[in-house]
């Protein structure tokens, strides 16, 4: 019985984190992006520097009519936002936050689980694009699919390098093996993993699937109201998950001064620094063209990931 209660509590905690931290990231995106462009960003909602802007947005989205286009595949269309959002919740449960088993659920094959489930998230935008009965949505969905195919491979290879270095695929296990010199050792892998993750989340500069100047909003074109809000939430939840994963795999997660007491704070800090980088990249770079996008994955990231694998193997053999 106590394990049941324990499981419920952990799930609720993960859900709360999923609902709160993406909003924090979204709000900081509003403000950081604004200041990087010499603007102020939201200033009214909530009174103090627009801190409640996303709450107001949420209220607005909830009030809007939930429209399903006449020609749409109704069931699939309505299910798509959930398919996009839920995988991130599942991934969040498996990410270790602090030492001594501070994790929603310790999964033995952690990396496998996390990467497999994250890949499901893209299925949401595929479903949305296919079910919308709209050519722009379909184009966006097909671009999503192409992007997923191109970037899943470097991401897996980069993650495999960490698993090789640690000799385990369990996320807490990897953190247990971590030493500070892993950061320079795995830095190429970190770059590949983070960049490929950005592409999987369809964040700028890899936002070809939702390129608003070409195909309106890609797979999400036909969505309104709360379902659209769920898609947006899934984007920010994706940033959270990607940044947390990068922090755990490549930057030592909870490792840092006073790790035994403040480990969770270190994880959070590293995650938010990486989230800042995500926002920073969005502000600084223009969107890649579709062919550039594919070229970058196949000719840039995959060779780099293979190089990292070779490097990891050599160092591993040398030190053992």
């Amino acid at each position, binding site marked *: 019985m106590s394990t049941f209660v324990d499981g419920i509590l952990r799930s609720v905690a993960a859900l709360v984190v999923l609902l709160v931290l993406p909003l924090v990231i979204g709000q900081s995106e509003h403000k*950081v992006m*604004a*200041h*990087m*462009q*010499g*603007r*102020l960003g939201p*200033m009214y909602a909530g009174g103090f520097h627009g801190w409640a802007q996303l709450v107001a947005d949420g209220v607005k989205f909830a009030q809007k009519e939930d429209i399903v286009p006449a020609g749409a595949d109704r069931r699939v269309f309505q299910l798509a936002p959930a398919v996009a959002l839920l995988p991130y919740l599942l991934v969040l449960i498996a990410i270790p936050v602090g030492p001594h088993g501070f994790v929603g659920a310790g999964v033995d094959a952690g990396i496998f689980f996390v990467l497999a489930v994250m890949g499901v998230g893209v299925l949401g935008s595929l479903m949305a694009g296919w079910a919308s009965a709209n050519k722009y949505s379909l184009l966006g969905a097909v671009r999503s699919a192409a992007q997923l195919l191109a970037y899943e491979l470097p991401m897996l290879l980069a993650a495999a390098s960490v698993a090789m270095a640690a000799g385990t695929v369990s996320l807490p296990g990897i953190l247990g093996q971590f030493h500070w010199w892993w950061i320079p050792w795995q830095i190429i892998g970190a770059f590949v993993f983070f960049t490929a993750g950005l592409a999987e989340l369809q964040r700028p500069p890899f936002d070809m699937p939702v390129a608003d100047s070409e195909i309106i909003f890609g797979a999400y074109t036909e969505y309104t109201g709360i379902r659209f809000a769920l898609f947006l939430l899934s984007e920010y939840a994706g940033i959270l998950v990607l940044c947390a994963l990068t922090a755990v795999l490549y930057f030592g997660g909870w490792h840092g001064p006073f790790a035994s007491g403040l480990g969770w704070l270190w994880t959070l800090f590293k995650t938010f620094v990486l989230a800042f980088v995500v926002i*920073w*990249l969005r*502000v*600084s*770079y223009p969107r890649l063209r579709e062919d550039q996008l594919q070229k970058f994955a196949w000719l840039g990231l995959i060779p780099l990931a293979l190089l990292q694998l070779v490097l990891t193997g050599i160092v591993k053999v040398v030190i053992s």
Partner: protein
Amino acid sequence: MAPSPTGSSSRSGFPGRGLAKGLAVTLRTMTRRSVTAQYPEAQPELPPRSRGVIALLEENCTVCMLCARECPDWCIYIDSHKETLPAAEPGARARTRNVLDRFAIDFSLCMYCGICVEVCPFDALFWSPEFEYAEEDITDLTHERDRLREWMWTVPAPPALDTAAEEPKEIAAARKAADKAAAAQAAAAQAASAGEPAGPDRPGEGTQ
């Protein structure tokens, strides 16, 4: 820097320099104060000759109609009547004068060219920097003389002249007259102190 045909890599020190530069620009902008003016909370600082609205100093208006006639949009409406003033002295002629009944400017037509302000020979029209007079109905943008008169209070004092500017004509003329009078006075004083002989020789000096 001359553009090279081989692209950015030959132009720069290391590959990806342009990408790093892009990141640096956004980061630097973030550390600076943003230039956004929070308008309803903070009023803008307008330059002294801002063309916000046209104010009327109706005490100066003689109903000469120059402004209404010069207005390219015909957005100035003036009504007046003549009034006869009784003779000021016995035997003199009674005088008539124009009395302003209505002076209105339709700001939905006005194109803020300022010709009316320019042509007014009696300094009755002025530019005011006041700009918050939006209305819900376009017909409400025709503002009557009382509203135009109230805007007079928002007209700023004329900006000071440039240090190298020519003196205004009125001041130049007054100064010339004053200088002349002073010179004459000095000459007269000199003549008086130098003794009698100089006086009769030049009788016209100093009395002009």
